[in-house]
């Protein structure tokens, strides 16, 4: 039982986080469109649901604070309070405080720190000005009077409660309802009904056969009592009646409600508060799955892909046609399963983006700048693991853009621009990877200052000639910061290099483009998934390498004659275009001489294009990435490994790193004039 309750608590915490997120979004929307009734409704529902669930778990600090918030929201909903910036600010802070309460009280089971309690007191104070004049500011759980139908006098309620058989299975504890009722008033009598308990033989220990007849003396209204059972309404029967104490005759106050409850509890709850049923319907289309389970599944599917490739390989060598046909059907299905499994883990990046609206709002206020955030491409999907890890780097980049990029309103007007700064977040798919752009219309980067600073720090030799691009990318070097004043937000020179490192860890790249006076664009390029890639197999000597398929442009055969000429020059004439060649056999120091026939695989990454000279082309292969481990951490040009159908291990080429490495290598050998053999490639 306690395990079930723990699970339910976990679900509550997850849901509460989501609801608070929704609340924050809606509040921000409300700030822009103060008349948006949907947003007000969404905020109210969020607070209401959190309060209700928190009450179920006996989390009194959460309930008592959320109740005040809900009170204010209720007045907002019926129009007694108008939306203004101050109210939004208070509500946003209240949302933060509720998050803290849930984290501290629900997740860790602790009580708040004194500092947090002080904050809470201040918030209660601020909220109380928006509350209805008759209600006291510190409305504890005892007198939870909400909405209409308040009965301030104490009434004796009679509650008939019949739990459904599935109550335990749904993670509910009947006892917790009784405990919660106790917080609303005084339970004078409880009769436990055991007449539905079957004979021992047919007793299912996981089923609930209990019913209660409860007499409760409370000031709470009928609606408040009714709300207590929101969570079990679907599978239990509840009747709440006021008892006329003089005649001891039950008088049905909310007869309408009870009648509905008799018809069917589901419709009753739907009519009572149409708003709350909406998220329930939506949840019906989703299944909450533990991410670990999903990862496990995807790992297994990965193994399945390898195993099925092995089976196909064997079948082909058997010369047995029906067997080959069967294995190819299996492979086709396995591929579909793989696609499906991977798709399970894809989530739109929009949620991550939307979280930044609040950040932008808060920071722009802190900096005294007027900044608007535009989001596009929010529906672009990418792997959950990538989404989780990209949040921090994006946050850094946004802060940087707001702090250093966008100027103050006065400076902007002086430069002939609109006073309001614009910041945009955009995501889109491009050649097998996802690109996230953070653009601002600020001052742009100061090329000279960066160069000066880089020389001062010894990052660049004085007199070196660098392209603009190279200079801009220097800001991603460790310990680099050009901000003259260290502000609260940025300027410490940690951050940009961390951003770059985090992105590199995700097998992504980051680069930066800037125009003086017009703004800066930071482009992050990330792989769609970390688990599986479509690869193109090539053979060198006896080894097999995998090139990510989305980087392969075309393959060209290289005959003896072409090889001689192109090897001398180090590049190839590809339909009038110069294509630099990389001889992988040499680069990877494979022994033995090349075969008579060689092939060139043309790869492209971002703006780089190159031809990789290999021995054999072995075709496409869907591969599960197996990390090589820390021992190979320093290895550049190889990002991981995979297991082929034959059971052999193949290495996956990291094309961006490989090309970068070769560019650096070339730069060093050509820059040093005394180098003995510069162009033997």
């Amino acid at each position, binding site marked *: 039982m306690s395990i079930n309750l723990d699970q339910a608590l976990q679900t509550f915490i997850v849901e509460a986080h989501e609801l608070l997120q929704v609340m924050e979004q809606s509040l921000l929307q409300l700030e822009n469109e103060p008349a948006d009734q949907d947003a007000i409704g969404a905020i109210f529902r969020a607070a209401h649901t959190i309060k209700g669930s928190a009450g179920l778990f006996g989390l009194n600090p959460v309930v008592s604070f959320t109740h005040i918030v809900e009170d204010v929201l209720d007045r907002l909903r019926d129009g007694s309070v108008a939306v203004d910036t101050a109210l939004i600010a208070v509500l946003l802070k209240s949302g933060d405080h509720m998050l803290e309460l849930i984290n501290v009280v629900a997740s860790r089971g602790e009580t708040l720190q004194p500092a947090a309690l002080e904050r809470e007191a201040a918030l209660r104070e601020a909220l109380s000005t928006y509350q209805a004049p008759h209600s006291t500011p510190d409305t504890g759980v005892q007198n939870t009077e909400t909405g209409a139908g308040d009965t301030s006098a104490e009434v004796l309620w009679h509650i008939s409660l019949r739990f459904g058989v599935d109550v335990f299975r749904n993670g509910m504890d009947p006892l917790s309802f009784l405990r919660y009722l106790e917080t609303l008033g005084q339970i004078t009598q409880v009769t436990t009904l055991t007449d539905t308990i079957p004979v021992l033989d047919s007793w299912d220990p996981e089923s609930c056969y209990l019913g209660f007849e409860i007499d409760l003396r409370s000031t709470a209204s009928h609606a408040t009592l009714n709300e207590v059972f929101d969570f079990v309404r679907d599978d239990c029967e509840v009747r709440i009646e006021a008892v006329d104490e003089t005649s001891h005759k039950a008088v049905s106050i909310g007869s309408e409600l009870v009648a509905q409850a008799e018809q069917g509890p589901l419709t009753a709850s739907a009519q009572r508060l149409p708003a709350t049923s909406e998220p329930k319907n939506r949840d019906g289309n989703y299944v909450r799955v533990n991410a670990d389970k999903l990862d496990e599944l995807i790992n297994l599917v990965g193994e399945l892909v390898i195993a099925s490739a092995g089976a196909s390989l064997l079948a082909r060598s058997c010369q047995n046609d029906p067997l080959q046909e069967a294995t190819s059907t299996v492979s086709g299905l396995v591929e579909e399963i793989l696609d499906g499994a991977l798709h399970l883990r894809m989530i739109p990046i929009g949620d991550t983006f939307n979280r930044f609206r609040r950040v932008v709002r808060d920071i722009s206020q802190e900096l005294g700048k007027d900044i608007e955030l535009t989001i596009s491409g929010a529906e672009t999907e990418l792997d959950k693991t990538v989404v989780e890890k990209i949040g921090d780097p994006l946050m850094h980049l946004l802060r940087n853009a707001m702090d250093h990029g966008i100027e103050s309103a006065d400076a902007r007007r002086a430069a002939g621009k609109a006073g309001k700064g614009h910041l945009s977040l955009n995501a889109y798919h491009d050649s097998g990877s996802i690109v996230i752009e953070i653009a601002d219309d600020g001052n742009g980067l100061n090329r000279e200052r960066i160069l000066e600073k880089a020389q001062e720090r010894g990052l660049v030799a004085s007199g070196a000639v660098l392209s603009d691009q190279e200079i801009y990318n220097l800001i991603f070097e460790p310990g680099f910061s050009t901000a003259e004043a260290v502000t609260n937000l940025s300027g410490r020179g940690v951050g940009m290099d961390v951003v770059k490192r985090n992105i590199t860890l995700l097998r992504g790249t980051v680069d930066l483009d800037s125009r003086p006076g017009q703004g800066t664009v930071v482009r992050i390029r990330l792989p769609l998934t970390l688990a599986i890639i479509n690869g193109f197999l090539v053979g060198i000597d006896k080894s097999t390498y995998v090139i990510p398929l989305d980087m392969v442009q075309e393959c060209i055969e290289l005959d003896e004659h072409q090889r001689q000429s192109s090897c001398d020059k180090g590049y190839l004439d590809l339909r009038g275009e110069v294509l630099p060649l990389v001889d992988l056999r040499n680069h990877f120091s494979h022994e033995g001489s090349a075969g008579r026939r060689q092939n060139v695989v043309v790869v492209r990454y971002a703006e780089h294009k190159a031809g990789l000279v290999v021995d054999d082309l072995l075709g496409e292969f869907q591969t599960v990435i197996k990390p090589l481990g820390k021992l190979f951490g320093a290895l550049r040009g190889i990002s991981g490994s995979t297991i082929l159908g034959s*059971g052999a291990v193949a290495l996956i080429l990291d094309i961006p790193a490989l090309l970068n490495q070769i560019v650096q290598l070339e730069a060093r050998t050509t820059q040093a004039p005394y180098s003995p053999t510069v162009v033997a490639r």
Partner: protein
Amino acid sequence: MGAVMTTRHTAVAVDEDAQYLTFMLGGEMFAIGILGIKEIIEYGSLTVVPMMPAFVRGVINLRGAVVPVVDLSARFGRANSAITRRSCVIIIEASTEEGQAQDIGLLVDTVSAVQEIAAAQIEPPPSFGARIRSDFINGMAKVDGKFVIVLDVDKVLSIDEMSSIAEAGQAPALDIDPR
């Protein structure tokens, strides 16, 4: 490969002795504690990883996991081991400084036996003369009248050290690359 291993019991105090796997490498006998050993497999199809130091022989597929194989002889600064019919890979669970476990294969010439060696029988390592870095040696054990070098597996297979050697090996290689 289990047939290669034979267990012998010697009558010594239980709390002081530990079991060791002995193996041959370049005509010398070595021993490692068996606690970290997961299994011993035949040397089989191995994929060479380019641009790594000589002692990283490559990677193998161990039932779906990719495991690096370290050539012990090359790790001692000698020539790479020659592969024979009796070459074996000892799979050992090594850990990084952060405490993450990683399996590593150790390529040796032949494995001999699992033996119990009493702590009293192990002498401290000589400061020189073993022709191996002295921090690799845990001690010298006397087994059947011959000295056996007991290795400190954590040092020999220190992932942090080996990866920093690999890192150092990459940078200068670029400078002097003659191609």
